[in-house]
């Protein structure tokens, strides 16, 4: 019973971390900068594809595995080697996290060009198509992640611990730390003059340019940073499930990211984290409920989708700015004004006759 609960909690924490990274990066893109990224799953899948291409190949070279890359035997051998070589495996894991961050940044930079030319809905549709096309491309191209079969045998970096539970707990803590780091940096970046600039781009691009802001540069940087966070999340996901399968990366991921963002609140990072928490609890919690508990006319797995859509509708109807609306940025300039106003009030108190 205890181990079951611990497994549930660690799985939930891992998914929570991944969701937090996705929704926070989307918040940076849309909530703060106004880039409607409807291709979130594409940037997410990049990290998984990096893990799926880089990890098996490097392991085959390093540990001289001769079996064909996509075969089941090779996949088992990779797991076995991972058990024997924990340090090398950890280095490979960290390298692929960094590598997916870099790939995410490069592709994010490339896609900042259409985001300059296309506005609003058109950009959203284009990114949606990019995400869908990339999935179709990867599943038909056997040399990336073995086409429709996907590639398995991506060993969990903590596999040599032996105990499945401890392995999952360690992995979830690591994901939590990475998610916290991205939260920390995004919070720092937006609560600064940089955050002011990207918000101004969201509100009025032309006026922002007329105040000397190089919109092109800011959009490119935001997309680079946000995409690299999404790609790292994808890489974490691939190592967690140990398998990269192109048909995993369907539009649902994008929709979930948007749902968390809208639920929590646009341009409010704390709200988005709460949104992700609500999401992951519903998502993971309902998976544990056996169908016979609820006498539903359909399978219990459809219940999640139904709940999410009802939530989305309610939010859009009654709280379009999210549960936690946008707040003023926390920059040092505010302290100056706060102090000034206090001073004026005190002066008035001291000399009531003037």
């Amino acid at each position, binding site marked *: 019973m205890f181990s079951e609960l611990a497994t549930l909690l660690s799985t939930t924490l891992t998914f929570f971390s991944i969701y937090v990274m996705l929704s926070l990066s989307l918040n940076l893109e849309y909530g703060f900068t106004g880039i409607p990224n409807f291709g979130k799953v594409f940037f997410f899948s990049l990290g998984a594809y990096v893990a799926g291409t880089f990890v098996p190949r490097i392991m085959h070279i390093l540990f001289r595995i001769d079996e064909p890359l996509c075969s089941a035997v090779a996949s088992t051998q990779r797991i076995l080697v991972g058990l024997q070589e924990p340090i090398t495996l950890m280095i490979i894991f960290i390298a692929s996290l960094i590598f997916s961050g870099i790939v995410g940044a490069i592709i994010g930079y490339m896609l900042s060009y259409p985001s300059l030319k296309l506005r609003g809905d058109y950009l959203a549709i284009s990114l949606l198509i990019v995400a869908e096309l990339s999935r179709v491309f990867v599943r038909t191209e056997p040399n990336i992640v073995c086409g429709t079969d996907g590639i398995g045998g991506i060993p969990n970096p903590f596999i040599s611990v032996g105990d499945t539970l401890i392995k999952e707990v360690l992995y979830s803590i690591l994901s939590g730390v990475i998610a916290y780091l991205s939260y920390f940096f995004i919070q720092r970046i937006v609560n600064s003059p940089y955050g002011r*600039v990207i918000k101004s781009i969201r509100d009025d691009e032309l006026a922002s340019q*007329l105040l000397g802001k190089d919109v092109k540069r800011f959009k490119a940087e935001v997309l680079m940073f946000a995409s690299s966070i999404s790609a790292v999340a994808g890489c974490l996901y691939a190592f967690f499930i140990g398998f990269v399968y192109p048909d995993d990366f369907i539009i649902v991921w994008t929709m979930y990211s948007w749902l968390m963002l809208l639920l929590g609140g646009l341009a409010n990072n704390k709200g988005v984290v709460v949104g992700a928490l609500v999401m992951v609890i519903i998502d993971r919690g309902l998976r544990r409920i056996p169908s016979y508990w609820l006498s539903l006319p359909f399978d219990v797995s459809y219940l999640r989708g139904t709940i999410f859509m009802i939530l989305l509708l309610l939010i859009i109807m009654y709280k379009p700015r999210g549960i936690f609306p946008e707040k003023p940025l926390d920059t040092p300039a505010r302290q100056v004004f706060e102090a000034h106003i206090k001073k004026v009030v005190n002066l008035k108190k001291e000399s009531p006759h003037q």
Partner: protein
Amino acid sequence: MPETILSLQEVTKSFGGLKAVKNVSLRISQGSIIGLIGPNGSGKTTLFNLISGVLHPDSGQIFFRGLRIDRMSPHERFKLGMCYAFQIPRIFKGMTVLENTMLSLKEQLGEKILTAPFRRRWFIQEIRNAQQILPLLEDVQLVNSYDKFSSDLSGGQMKLLQLARTIASDAKLFLLDEPGAGLAPSLAKELFKNILKLRNEKGLTFFIIEHRLDLLFDIVDKVYVMNRGEIIAEGKPEEIIEDPKVKEAYLGG
């Protein structure tokens, strides 16, 4: 003779078949206050859009502080020292009054993605910048609403906020499109007095579109009159009032 800060040579811009600005040439010297008047739809705002970089001219050249700028993007022109305040205020509605004003300060260290997360790198500059804009917001009586989202301001306050933001930019040339419109008479008077003061004290240059001639003519050195995309007259306010062409096209009667 004072230095020329802005000069336009034969600048033309058309929208489809309509020539909004036709062969406009003008010269503005540093430290002057220049007015631009003309009937509605005469191309005044289009001319400002061409100078500030919102639009690019079809032909002709624009020089600002000795540099040719007509192919530059708006943000590059701003960095050279030009700031444009729109007729209908374009403030950032999802940002507070303070954030709106802070935005226009130049060379902020915290605007680089690599320094932004490290507060210590830009903290002192930020505090100084805030102290610098505090009196500006005091002038327009928006200090107490510094933390308000600017979408909650009234129309006149939005206009004032835009002005404060424009002045905070530390530009050399200000393009003001109807700064007095939508303000209470006393405030508008105050505003024009402040413009004159800024010119006298700091040698700043102002190029102003305004329909309230009583206010404008008190402070300007020279007025250009536009009609149907062309400059039909230029000179001191006294001369302009007497000009028959101006009377016919703009002043009436």
